[in-house]
């Protein structure tokens, strides 16, 4: 039974029809699939079927560990959204509910390979010399979460030093516990700073700078 109904498929096909470049959805599962692995696998395949610009590839986290290592994927279900290059856009957990919006936005951003961030943000990102890891915890019923996820993914596209993950708090409760997630969206930057809620770009930029300062002080 398809996950996407006819109406959603029509709208997705319309949106993906405007993609300006190829997009690869690289999905990771394993032989004995996790709770939402089969649905996530089915989702990427259904989405890929709706556009000639989109291809879906499914890997096994264990059997294809070299590929997983290459993309830095360490948990499933995972989707890497790859455009002309791997920009570091990741989804951990099924992008259902409001997060389906984030998946479509990520595909559009990866296809374009460029983003509409503020000049101050682009300048800061262009000067990065150390990796930045943004983890955005979400729930599928959170209407505020896509704003945080989309911004983090745009930052990943803007800088090869940034990797941004959407993480489903319900599918990865150990991570939710580790990062003390009791509300979403919650963005964790480099394990040291965090943002509650869907903050505006200047707020996120300041938190990113704070994380960079903290790293420099550590060194």
């Amino acid at each position, binding site marked *: 039974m398809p996950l996407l109904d006819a109406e959603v498929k029509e709208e997705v096909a319309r949106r993906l029809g405007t993609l300006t470049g190829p997009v690869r959805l690289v999905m990771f599962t394993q032989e004995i699939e996790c709770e939402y692995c089969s649905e996530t696998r089915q989702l990427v395949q259904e989405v890929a079927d709706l556009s000639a610009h989109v291809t879906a590839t499914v890997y096994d986290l264990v059997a294809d560990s070299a590929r997983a290592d290459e993309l830095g994927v360490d948990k499933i279900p995972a989707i890497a959204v790859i455009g002309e290059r791997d920009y570091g856009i990741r989804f951990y957990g099924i992008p259902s509910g409001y997060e389906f919006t984030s998946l479509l936005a990520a595909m559009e951003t990866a296809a374009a390979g460029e983003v509409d961030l503020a000049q101050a943000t682009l300048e800061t990102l262009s000067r990065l010399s150390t990796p930045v890891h943004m983890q955005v915890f979400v729930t599928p019923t959170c209407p505020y979460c896509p704003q945080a996820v989309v911004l983090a993914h745009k930052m990943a596209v803007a800088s090869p030093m940034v990797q941004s993950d959407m993480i489903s708090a319900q599918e990865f409760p150990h991570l939710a516990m580790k990062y*003390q997630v*009791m509300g979403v969206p919650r963005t964790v930057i480099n394990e040291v700073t965090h943002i*509650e809620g869907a903050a505006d770009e200047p707020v996120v930029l300041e938190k990113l700078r704070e994380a960079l300062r903290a790293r420099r002080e550590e060194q």
Partner: protein
Amino acid sequence: MSTDFVIGESSEPQTYDVVVIGGGPAGASAAIYTARADLTTLVIDKGLTAGAMGMASKIANYPGLPEPIAGTDLVRRIRDQARSFGASFVDGKVLRVDLKAEPKRAWTGSAEYRGRAMIIATGAMGRTNRFAGEDRLLGRGVSYCATCDAAFFRDRTVAVAGNSDEAIDEALTLTRFASRVHFLNPRADFLAPEGLVDELRAHEKITVHPSTRIKEIVGDTGVEAIHVVGRGREEIIDVAGIFIYLQGNVPITDYLDGQLPTSGEGCIVVDTTFQTEVEGVFAVGDVLCTHVKQAAISAAEGVTAAIAVDRHLHGREGLRPDWSR
């Protein structure tokens, strides 16, 4: 967990002639006139009882309506009239805007909306004071979205503060996860449809505390309890989470992020045509300090702004910005 798939607006969403933020008497009346002027019109609104009219049980002085009418019924009639001329309404809470862009843009959590002109009509039900402990424990048990965060409170005791239909809906959502929900109503009555209130009162997991206000949210690294006062007593209730849906009386302008100048009282500053300092952006109703809080006056301001929007979009003849008011 939900496996529905929500599609937000596309990267190139439709551009309306007019986007109205807020669907109370001011915003909905503006929509009547812009839609009737054949301008494509979209109204984004949080809900029928979210604004001041949700608190008005009887309005008896609205011109042309001699029989007393509930505030929500009056708004519903104005909206229906706007729809009859082609205006569209969407449910949503605008989180941010870009007023300098052309077209102007507004974002809810899941969608972007664009308008050649924009009318701000979000009223003055914003909260003023924060509770002790609220900011510090945000994301540590303090939440404003049960739909988002309820799953983190499975088998825990939580509280909801509010008395609107939004607060009740969110409390009912929480019952699917939490073991007990304390509903703290700051008033003796509710500002919500009777059926919804009945559902709240009848729910076995919900304890309703009428006339009860929060004094402090207690906790070290996370919410542990709330200190409440009401009906001559004070009480500490152990909870792991507190979901807040309270209203105040300051203009709701936080989502504008300083893009429009405001007065010392936080009100948006407009000229005589209700245009703000940003061309093509108008503000009407309770977000203005010069405004007298009456539904008829809000409606009249909405109409005046709508006519100015029509002129603005069809050339500037007749528009004379006046910053004297």
